[in-house]
């Protein structure tokens, strides 16, 4: 009985350690993210062979990371994403806090949408937003419809209140819809 409960306690703490570390880490200098598309800062242009094409991003480094999600929220305002998407409610651009996804709800899809742009108005931010920041935006866009754990979702901002805070919204089940 006693040994069993000790085992349980140790197991629980290991699980906690594994999950919480990821959620609360502050990934300041995530060069692996920045270099994922062969954009490592180099001091010389001499390189063996021809530059390889940018590999398609396949993973979201900041999924389940509270800090990066919060940074994404800051950038979402700073880069005026709200100009079209209006804090998620949609305007000129589609709403982001609902369950409808035109170009895919996977992190890689959102990444592509931001970097490459989409027809009917979404501009391409290729080379305008550093990859690290794009991934932060991806994390935040996911959180807008509750696609992140509850302890990662941002709460209210120090601004005028414009909508329900992300952590108080209903978590939507993503649904693929056709192009508009």
């Amino acid at each position, binding site marked *: 009985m006693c040994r069993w409960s000790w085992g349980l306690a140790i197991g629980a*703490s290991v699980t*906690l*350690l594994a999950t*919480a*570390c990821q*959620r*609360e*880490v*502050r990934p*300041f200098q995530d060069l692996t993210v920045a270099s994922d598309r062969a954009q490592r800062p180099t001091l010389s242009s001499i390189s063996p062979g021809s530059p390889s094409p940018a590999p398609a991003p396949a993973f979201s480094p900041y999924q389940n990371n*509270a*800090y990066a*999600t*919060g*940074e994404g*929220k800051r950038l979402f305002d700073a880069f005026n994403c709200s100009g079209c998407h209006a804090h998620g409610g949609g305007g000129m651009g589609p709403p982001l806090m609902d369950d409808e996804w035109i170009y895919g709800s996977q992190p890689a899809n959102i990444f592509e949408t931001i970097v490459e742009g989409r027809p009917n108005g979404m501009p391409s931010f290729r080379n305008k937003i550093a990859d690290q920041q794009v991934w932060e935006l991806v994390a935040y866009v996911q959180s807008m419809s509750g696609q992140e754990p*509850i*302890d*990662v979702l*941002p*709460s*209210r*901002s*120090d*601004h*005028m*209140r414009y909508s*329900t*805070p992300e*952590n*108080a919204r209903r978590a939507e089940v993503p649904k693929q819809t056709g192009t508009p």
Partner: protein
Amino acid sequence: MDREQQQRLQREEHERHEVIERVEPMPEPAAAARLHRELERTWYVPSGLIGSLCVVDHRTIAKRYIVTAFCFFIFAGLLAVLMRIQLAVPNNHFLGPDLYNQVFTTHGTMMMFLFAVPVMEAMGVYLVPLMVGTRNIAFPRLNAFSYFVYLFGGVMLTVTLLMNTAPDVGWFAYVPLAGPDYTPGKRADFWAQLITFTEVSGLAVSVELVATILKTRAPGMSLNRMPLFVWSMLVTALMVIFAMPSVVTSSSMLLLDRLVGTHFYNPAEGGDSLLWQHLFWFFGHPEVYIIFVPALGIVSSVIATFTGRPVFGYPAMVLALVATGFIGFGLWVHHMFATGLPQLGLTYFTAASMIIAIPSGIQIFCWIASLWRGRPRFHTPLLFVLGFVAIFVFGGLSGVTLASQPFDLQVHDTYYVVAHFHYVLLGGAVFPLIGGIYYWFPKMTGRMMDDGLGKITFWVLFVGFNVTFFPMHILGFEGMPRRVYTYPAELGWGPLNLVATIGAGMLALGGLLFLYNVVKSHAAGAVASANPWNGGTLEWSVPSPPPVYNFLYQPVVEGRDALWERSADVPVVVGIRSDCREVLITDVMDAEPSNKVEYPEPSIWPFLCAVVTSAFFIGSIFTPWALPVAIIPLAITLIGWFWPKSPRAEAPGVAAPVKEAA
């Protein structure tokens, strides 16, 4: 008034006077032994795994408190060493900003909320019932509850640091930095809930102490005969009761801002970020006195015993303590001198912050007069108290300079302030505390601590302390702000920082020596007699360590220093039942016997209630649903806790053996 009522009043009056009877000072051994056996059975301390969770005995719980608090002290002290290593040289990369911020926040939070306040209250929990001559602390189950809540809160903070989730916003967590926008994730929520944990336990202990002091003093111990330590605990407990609701409110508001999107601290929606500072410091400034006033009580106890005379100027000392308690609430704004408040208000707070130096000064003068008048015996406890005088006077004077608003504008939030509060908290509270541990260790464990090693420890700590913290004054003048994780080499702060780091190493060594002494003495120290130092307060009248029921016969007090002024035919209290946990209640002013109450038996419910409370507090970090969900188990545990006992048959015959013994 009808006849029946009159009769009842007469009967009560009669019973009250019956409580005290004059007896021979030493009852006959056989009767005493019988009473001892009976009391030991009644006031038993359960053992075993489950039993140890049911304990309601104040000495056991206080010892747990003290040991736990020292564990947190060691942990937070090691964090301080990490910080000093990071700052030893300019542009160091040992910790980095993220970890450094977590470390300094955890260090401050742990030292303030998990070490300093609890350990002082724990000294009170252990000593106050003994000093006022009663069998247990009032509300014993609440006492057990408070310990477990404190323990769970402390473990939570420790675990968060190990999980890279420790708060990183400073121990006073200014908004909006600690708000939802600038500290995403759950780090600041853990901080806010830690406050709730420690406040719940702190308030519970304070209520117990106030009730114990005001209602269960031994007959004859009128307010003007209370030992100074008890006075200091009374003032502290009352300060806790008035100060802590303020911080519970502010931290709960912070949690609400972060969790459910309220706007208490959001200026854009009509909130105010300065509101946090007012609420926090309305608690935060009394907090330093909450830590420091019990230390004054320890100092008075040690000085009285080791000079062999009562402390000089008892009325002045008491009035100074009470005045500190009052004025301490009127100077919180001196933490906010730079926030641009109106000049007239700042003038008031400058004056108030100056005035509080007067009661502290009076106490220092009275202690020096006591040392002058008495014949000091230089044992380790007195050395620590003398170290306290040397350090605290320095810290107090630097505090006076900080009270000056214009001067504060320059040194505020610099290393000058860091130096100042370590002088008054480490020097002003921890030195007396360690002295107090050396002093009461024989009472608590029945063994003496090694005095020679204690003196070496004192000198290592004293020198280490000054080497660490004195240079910080100069760093403050040179413009080094606090809470920087590194600094450029060109500013020339490197050498003094290196000196401070070396001092921190000495402090760590001193801590290690103290720890070694405790462990060694606990295992194999010289066996202590009941009163090894020839102290004058009641705790020295019982064997070391005290029996589970504290006093075979509850004593009657005839003077301020009960043991020194005890007459040959001292009366004792009889007529208290020994077959149940009955204690004598006396009145507030003169400690005249007025009533008898029965204290509760050991119980598992306080522990279960603490578990549920902790689960609720931690759960409410993540979801507001924790509150409605937790209410049901919380209600169950409280119902179990307060389940009435079947009324005991009033059996006057049971009390008779005690009288016979008398």
